[in-house]
């Protein structure tokens, strides 16, 4: 079996269309972030890991509704309640003072629930308390982690390839992250620690994809007469040559992730969803963003070779 053998799609020629698609999606995401700032006071729906606060997860023997649970916890004054996976499990984000401990809060919640539901019919399965200081530290750490990995990757690629490859890869990765963050903002997905891990994995995956294509570009550039070839044709050819691998790898990874999404349970759900999104965007961006970015950079700043050589090898038309 072979897929996309000797394919010759005009990816790079159609890059303008991709720019529009990416632009629209990114704009939507940014609009959602701005809307979030106006409505929930923060550009993302940060969970207790980042804001500090308490989280109490309760499992009931019988299915119940969040409305019923909210009524048990004080009606209008009830803390935010969200369903966790099945209808038997809910997460309560109770407010917490600086002094009181999570156990006091958990016990108070338990008492309130026990007053409505019978005492033995539920169980507190998870409690979390994060001090506000720890939360804001984590926000900073996450930012550092992402910036650091950007810088180091750029340096590595500049060293292994050429500067323009590194630059194009970082543009593609930033594009992927923007779209992912936009998606998280649109659906107000709760940002927890594993979500940061997922975002960084996307960075890794997107780079992986991009590098495979760039590796082929690099190889084709080293072939005899390559510098005389139309760069668009060369890059487009490289994308097509690696297309079977791109599709097969993405497909396999997606298959595994789908299994995780469907069977992995609620603990993994958000995390897996972000990863799936990342794989799709990462694959798209390595074809439609990273490779065109390479061409655009080359058009504006040259190949990084000496100018004398450049005038000789670079075709006038693009």
């Amino acid at each position: 079996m072979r897929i996309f053998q000797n394919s010759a799609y005009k990816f790079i020629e159609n890059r303008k269309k991709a720019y529009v698609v990416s632009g629209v999606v990114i704009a939507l995401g940014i609009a959602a972030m701005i809307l979030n700032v106006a409505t929930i006071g923060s550009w993302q729906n940060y969970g207790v890991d980042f804001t500090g606060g308490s989280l109490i997860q309760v499992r009931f023997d019988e299915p119940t509704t969040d409305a019923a649970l909210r009524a048990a916890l004080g009606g209008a004054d009830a803390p935010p309640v969200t369903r966790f996976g099945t209808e038997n499990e809910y997460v309560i984000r109770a407010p917490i003072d600086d002094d009181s401990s999570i156990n006091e809060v958990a016990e108070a919640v338990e008492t309130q629930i026990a007053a409505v539901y019978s005492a033995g019919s539920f169980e507190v399965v998870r409690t979390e308390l994060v001090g506000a200081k720890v939360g804001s530290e984590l926000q900073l750490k996450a930012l550092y982690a992402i910036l650091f990995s950007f810088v180091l990757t750029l340096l590595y690629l500049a060293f292994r390839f050429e500067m323009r490859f590194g630059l194009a890869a970082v543009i593609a990765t930033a594009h992927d992250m923007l779209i992912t963050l936009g998606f998280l903002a649109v659906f107000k997905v709760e940002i927890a620690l594993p979500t940061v891990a997922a975002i960084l994995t996307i960075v890794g995956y997107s780079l992986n994809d991009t590098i495979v294509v760039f590796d082929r570009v690099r190889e084709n550039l080293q072939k005899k007469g390559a510098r005389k070839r139309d760069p668009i044709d060369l890059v487009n050819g490289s994308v097509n040559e690696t297309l079977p691998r791109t599709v097969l790898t993405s497909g396999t990874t997606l298959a595994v992730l789908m299994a995780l999404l469907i069977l992995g349970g609620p603990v993994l759900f958000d995390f897996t969803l972000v990863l799936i999104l990342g794989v799709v965007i990462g694959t798209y961006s390595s074809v439609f963003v990273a490779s065109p970015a390479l061409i655009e950079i080359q058009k504006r700043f040259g190949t990084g070779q000496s100018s004398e050589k450049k005038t000789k090898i670079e075709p006038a038309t693009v």
Partner: protein
Amino acid sequence: MFKTLRSRLVLIALVIMMSGWQLYSNGLKLGLDLQGGMHLALEVDDPDGTMTAAAKADMIDRVDRIIRTRIDELGVEEPLIQQVGGDRLIVELAGVSDQDQAKDIVQRNAFLEFKLVVVSSDMENALTRMDRAIVATLGVDSIRALGRDVAGPTNQTDLEGLLFGNTADSTSAESDSARAEVEDAAQAELDAADALRPFSSLLNFGDAEGTFLIAIEDVPVAEMFLEVEGVERAYPRNQVLQWGSELVAQGARTYKRLYVLEEEAFITGDLLEDATASRDPQFNQSQVQFEFSRAGGRVFSQVTGQHVNDYLAIVLDGEVMSAPVIRDRIGARGQIDMGAGTPLEEAADLALVLRAGALPAKINIIEERTVGPSLGQDSIDQGKIAGIVGLVMVVVIMLSYYKMAGLLAIAALGVYVVLVLGGLAGIGTGAVLTVPGIAGLILSVGMAVDANVLIFERIREELDEGRATRTAVDEGFQHAMSAIVDANITTLITALILMQFGTGPVKGFAVTLSIGIVASFFSALFVTRSLFLFYLNGKKASDPISI
């Protein structure tokens, strides 16, 4: 070095055996999110921010040692206790069932002091000064708001008269007399303020010498008053007031004791050698028996010998546990009564923390996560099923797309799985399998598959260009190498950064991913290659292969 097929296969077998042995002997450690347990982040209390970094680091070092001892005594298996950033301590206790107990044992200061109870009227004489200090600092209005604008017995009638005068005043229409009255009232206010007894009016005569009784409902206000600035300065020299831990019932009311103690403890818990819990069935009471070291015993016996018939207050973390009378010189041993009806477990916990030693400072819990074991079990079960289904899908895709070569890749993947699990088991306490860790594992499976796909696609291309089988395979591996190396290294960079910045579950993810990348590297480039050599062995250079 590994030129021959035989040496390659031997190396692979060795690596598999080593990983298998690691996995067998150490087992795979599960993270708290999978097996249930408790995660605590502790910090030394520094409300004013005056401690230097070095002082904090030193403090956290001592806290670390003491908490380690305490947890060892508690009998938690393989606790993870780790200093982070020089001022923070992470304590992870897997499979702890009683969270309150565990927290108490970690957080309790356990600072034990022995002080003598002062039997003199000095403190009583100081009460007026304390009342004045409270009025001066808080102001009459806030004391009135608390409902504690009670005057002392001498001025009682005066004050009432003044208050009545004041009420009449407000209805008066005549401005002149009104002003005079206001001035009078101002003066009266000052006198009244002087006469207020906000604190001493809360006190009742104690049931023993050197104590006061305070009604339980007044305790919060009294506590607040004792915190007021200037009150402590009003204490008589070398005397302090400290709360008792026990409640006292007298008639229909319940009281708490306030003891008058010598300020300096004559001996503290750091001279303790041993502490054990026991139970006195006759009085339904738990006790902690303690024993001082030789030096401690000398001090203890000397002081108690000098103070026969005085009261000895046993103070734990600033609360008087009990204050028995000294009947005779006490040697190196003594006991703390825990009060009627206290369960033995509580005494056992106290004995434990006393043995392990007192924490040098107050410890704040700044982060706390607990996961019930049932939730963890669900996660494991679901993770397992999802992992198996995912792997089966990979197998199906690889087999149907690459046939024989796919089979080789799957065999290499099998080696990869053993390597990763063995690596996780062998790396030590830092590596535990967490929920995100499972995801990291599955992701690195994806990368291992990707490496194989890169190689096989390349071999196909080489075959398309009409190269002989053996050459095509060699070229395929060679040309796929650079992409695999670069892709793996960039992902490794991300994983290593996560390991530095992440905590808990994220770190678990990063560790699993890093091990996974290294293993996938070895599996794709070495194992698949060797299996290919094995497959090609005996074939002619031009024989077709199934790919």
